[in-house]
């Protein structure tokens, strides 16, 4: 389990760094072109389980290696780096493009839009590679969309693990407070300062 840091891993536990998966809103995670609906949720797990391929993994449809993964967070996060573990035999994705804070991106949008950052990926079945982000652009991320346009030559693309490293800020992006909708105006709900006993001058 070699890490790319300058120190050796016996001193600390890498898993605490890769703990952003706890802040992912798993119920709203979605993917396009996945072969089994809902299988995308299985790629977000703890660092220790990243090599555990016994469970489900994300696979694209036959003959089409493109994948699009939408990841919303429960609060704003700062993402420092991303790690991807793909499948063997060329099913690993070869490119990754990221979009920040955009809802409802589909393939035609992803292909035409300018990504906030793009990476060339290497085949990384042991999970030792991490891809750093331009940190200044990933400061308050409410959701991130990852687009994998191509792989290393196989019919389908497989992803076993997506890891995110960074910190959570405990802030929510656009929280809608409980709004009371009035069908008819009710004067008692709107007390003016004059009624409540304040003093106002008109000059």
């Amino acid at each position, binding site marked *: 389990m070699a890490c790319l840091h300058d120190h050796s891993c016996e001193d600390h536990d890498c898993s605490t760094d890769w703990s952003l998966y706890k802040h992912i809103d798993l119920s709203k995670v979605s993917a396009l072109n996945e072969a089994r609906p809902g299988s995308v949720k299985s790629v977000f797990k703890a660092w220790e389980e990243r090599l555990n391929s016994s469970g489900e993994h994300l696979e694209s*449809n036959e003959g089409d290696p493109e994948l699009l993964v939408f990841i919303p967070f429960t609060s704003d996060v700062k993402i420092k780096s991303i790690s991807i573990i793909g499948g063997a035999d060329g099913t690993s994705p070869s490119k990754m493009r990221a979009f920040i804070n955009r809802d409802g991106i*589909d393939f035609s949008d992803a292909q035409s839009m300018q990504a906030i950052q793009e990476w060339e990926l290497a085949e990384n079945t042991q999970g030792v590679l991490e891809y750093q982000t331009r940190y200044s652009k990933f400061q308050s991320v409410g959701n991130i969309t990852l687009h994998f346009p191509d792989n290393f030559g196989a019919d389908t693309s497989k992803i076993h693990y997506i890891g995110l490293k960074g910190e959570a800020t405990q802030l929510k992006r656009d929280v809608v407070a409980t709004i009371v909708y009035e069908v008819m105006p009710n004067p008692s709900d709107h007390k003016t300062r004059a009624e409540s006993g304040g003093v106002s001058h008109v000059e």
Partner: protein
Amino acid sequence: MVLEATMICIDNSEWMRNGDYSPSRFQAQADAVNLICGAKTQSNPENTVGVLTMAGKGVRVLVTPTSDLGKILACMHGLEIGGDMNLAAGIQVAQLALKHRQNKKQQQRIIVFAGSPVKHEKKVLEMIGRKLKKNSVALDIVNFGEEDEGKTEKLEALLAAVNNNDTSHIVHVPAGPNALSDVLISTPIFTGDGEGGSGFAAAAAAAAAGGVSGFEFGVDPNLDPELALALRVSMEEERARQEAAAKKAAEEASKQEKGGEQQASSQDATMTERASASASEAETKTSDMMDDENALLQQALAMSMDDPAINQEAKDTDMSEAASDDPELALALQMSVSDSSKDSSSQSDMSKLLADQSFVSSILASLPGVDTNDPSVKDLMASMQNQSEQKDDDKKPPSEEEKK
């Protein structure tokens, strides 16, 4: 209750003038579209539906996905028939319209009415299908109208390319007496993968199909509860009566060989009557039960005096049959059996006692409301001397009557 945005693609080509679907193919299609819009908006108020036409001058979006049913119905008016259907372009424009829906949380669905021949190649349709599947758009195809060679095959291939986990469906509607909308109501296009519009579908089926309804007795309990209740009660009474008659016939047939068991069968009939009466809980039967009890009592006493051994067996079998569905009745019958057994054993003693007139008169005198000088009582005493067998019968019912 799945949140969905739907685009309906209408075929308004020249082939829709044909009258093999009543009143015309186009009108049948319009009715089906109206029903679908109603079903979708009813299953979830946030659902949106849009409509576009595939033929005419070209593919034209009549209304973008909206939840306003009035707008959708209004745009169906004044549609012109003409031109040629362009299935591929229609589906692609529908996909574009869905992509720009306001609420991105809605699932995307396209419903296509394919009434005229399909002029595209199978490969083109499969490619369109794969693109829909990739963007997780579901597709429902209604294959009606022209039965072109290869049309069914092409549409099935399109469905196979789109289908992801059975979210897409195809329905083939041949021309016939049933209206297009009636056939569609029972399909997954309406029922929405097993949930959602089924309530609407049931109501629509009841309204549209007229006499054929899914309700018991052909009467909707919501519309006319009293009529439905009366029908149900009369049905149950008839069933109970028929059961009793059948049982009586069966009992009589089986008891013929035993000989002289008329009382047993009639007693059984009364017992079954009692059982069924208690089961149906009808008020009119309570008075019947009183009479039955008296008759039952007489029968039991008569039997106990005739021949204790045989009658007891018959009684046991009859009672076990009749009491199988009423445990309280079984308990009561068991007690009466044990009583009558005691009675029969001590019958000889009792008869001797009762033969003693002085003893009887003293008993009668102790009874409240009985005047020993009453002529009817005197007659009774006299008759008791003569009829030793039926003395209990005569004594008890008159004494009951006098007590009353």
